[in-house]
């Protein structure tokens, strides 16, 4: 590093600035706006190179999420899936809340879109902290990015901690059963497990917001599951879609389905009295109610959507 002469470094920075200006101009930015965006990008790069940013105990990196991850997802959200959000007022403006959503789409892109919906549509630009499977955090490249963008392991300890700290937490209780289901089972909710998410919300006394996502089912319709191959690779499923694995990595390109995300009326959990989180009857009752709400909303949203792609 010390071998690099000052003038070389200066030249490299000038080339970088020119490149950024060209890229900015290509996206239609002009004048002050362009200068501002170039300056912001440079400031971001400087922070990354010098380590001048903060990561919280879960590994959440707000700087990275807001300046890299979300901007990269935004074109997908706006132009590709044309996500339409309903009921954003059902999310608490501040304090803890548990967003429970259906999971689908072979590649778990629905959680990313929900995160962006919450960030862009809430007045306070709230960040959604998500709970993911351990496989995510064990995977190279994927694991660190998941943590940086606000995911952590789906355990009651982590959920509890996030809710107690007043975060908005997103959970997809169907897990791999949801994302890895076949296209013929689309919009049919899978099992919700033991309702650990309900217990966490009860303990933290935060509302549960049912969230129904329509559109994710069609991004990569899974026609079959090559189970032996999945076992061989240690994956929960191995998808066979019209384009994957036939077109290789290109087959992973999501189809441009039309998305609707609806946040339902919050379900209170602070009126259940002491020890409700340990009462399986209460936990299952709430869990069922959330599941029913999502399932019903899904059917209603599907009626509202004119077609899969519009």
């Amino acid at each position: 590093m010390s071998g690099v002469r000052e003038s070389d470094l200066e030249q490299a920075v000038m080339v970088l600035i020119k490149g950024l200006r060209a890229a900015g101009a290509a996206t239609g930015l002009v004048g002050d706006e362009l200068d501002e965006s170039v300056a912001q990008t440079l400031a971001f790069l400087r922070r990354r190179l010098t380590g001048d940013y903060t990561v919280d105990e879960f590994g959440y990196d707000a700087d990275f999420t807001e300046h890299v991850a979300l901007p990269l997802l935004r074109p997908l959200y706006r132009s590709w899936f044309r996500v339409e959000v309903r009921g954003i007022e059902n999310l608490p403006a501040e304090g803890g809340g548990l967003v429970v959503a259906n999971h689908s789409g072979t590649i778990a892109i629905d959680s990313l879109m929900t995160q962006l919906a919450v960030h862009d549509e809430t007045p306070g630009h709230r960040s959604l902290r998500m709970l993911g499977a351990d496989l995510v955090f064990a995977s190279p490249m994927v694991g660190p990015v998941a943590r940086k963008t606000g995911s952590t392991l789906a355990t009651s300890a982590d959920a509890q901690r996030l809710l107690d700290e007043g975060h908005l937490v997103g959970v997809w209780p169907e897990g791999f059963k949801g994302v890895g289901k076949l296209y013929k089972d689309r919009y049919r909710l899978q099992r919700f497990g033991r309702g650990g998410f309900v217990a966490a919300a009860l303990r933290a006394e935060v509302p549960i917001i049912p969230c129904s996502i329509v559109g994710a089912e069609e991004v990569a319709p899974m026609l079959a599951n090559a189970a032996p191959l999945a076992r061989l690779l240690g994956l929960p499923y191995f998808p066979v879609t019209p384009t994957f694995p036939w077109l290789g990595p290109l087959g992973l390109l999501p189809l441009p389905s039309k998305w609707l995300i609806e946040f339902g009326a919050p379900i209170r959990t602070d009126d259940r009295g002491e020890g409700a989180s340990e009462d399986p009857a209460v936990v299952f009752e709430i869990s069922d109610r959330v599941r029913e709400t999502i399932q019903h909303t899904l059917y209603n949203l599907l009626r509202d959507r004119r077609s899969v792609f519009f």
Partner: protein
Amino acid sequence: MDEAAHPRVVLVTGVARDLAGRVVRRLAEDPSIERVIGVDLVPPKHPMGRGEYVRADVRSPLLARLITQAGVDTVVHMGVIATPRDAGGRVVQKDINVLGTMQLMAACQKSASVRRVVVKSTAGVYGSSPRDPAVFTEEMTAKQLPRSGFPHDSMEAESYVRGLSRRRPDIDITMLRMANVIGPSIRTVLTDYFRMPVLPVPFGQQGRLQFLHEDDAVAAVVHATSGPVVGTVNVAGDGVLSLGQAIALSRRPWLPVVTGAGGLSLWATRRLGWAALPADHLAFLSYGRVIDTQRMRKELGFAPAYTTRGAFESFLAARRAGDRPEQQPVEEGQ
């Protein structure tokens, strides 16, 4: 804590190493403490102030006699060694760590004078894996327990400490589970790592790192000899650094290396001296580990002077200044 709990005669183990030596010096500065006795197999090279050095093996029954004769009321156990190199081989290391703690706890159990035991343990007992919660509280145990090396020794050592607390509930026990100790003078596997010219990083992984400054480690132990009794308590500096951040702060080039067997990784480990990095450190760098410090603040009443970032920057400042710690005695922590 009541007046009666103030230590009069303190025994500190593992004093040949820097941290324990500094604990002895700090205790010796307190005029209300009558005697500070430091034991180790090797005589310490650093000054111990008023502290007395006794050459003794923690594994020998001699220690029990020493405790009785001197009327020791407070035992500070810092004789658990982190790296095989410091002990003279893995077998000796395990022997000192596990059998040493067992013998020392047995001596405390039999003693009529011991009223308080302070043990320096490590957050390494929580392991590092992608299957564990992001933040460990004292009640949690890891899904994937450490199976070898120093963290495993520490788990066994802790079990003897718990055994003592069961058999002698009248003895006050504080066990400090410290995050990785770092600073200008301490030498650990991790400081060796961050002194490499090119940092090999596990491919596609970035652990969350948490540090405790060496000064805070010393202060925490000293505080625990007279502070409130809390049982097991996590001790760490505030905040978290990701591995990527730590590397950016250290201003050194890095190289992603696929862990496990393979041509490149073998080549890289030889080339860059990464072979010295034990498996638990690899896991730590890959997945990291964060411990909750609420109990440290609220119950133990201890606040570290350095944050995680501050501790790391203090180490980096010393590294940049070039005062390599070769002249310093080799130290534990991890």
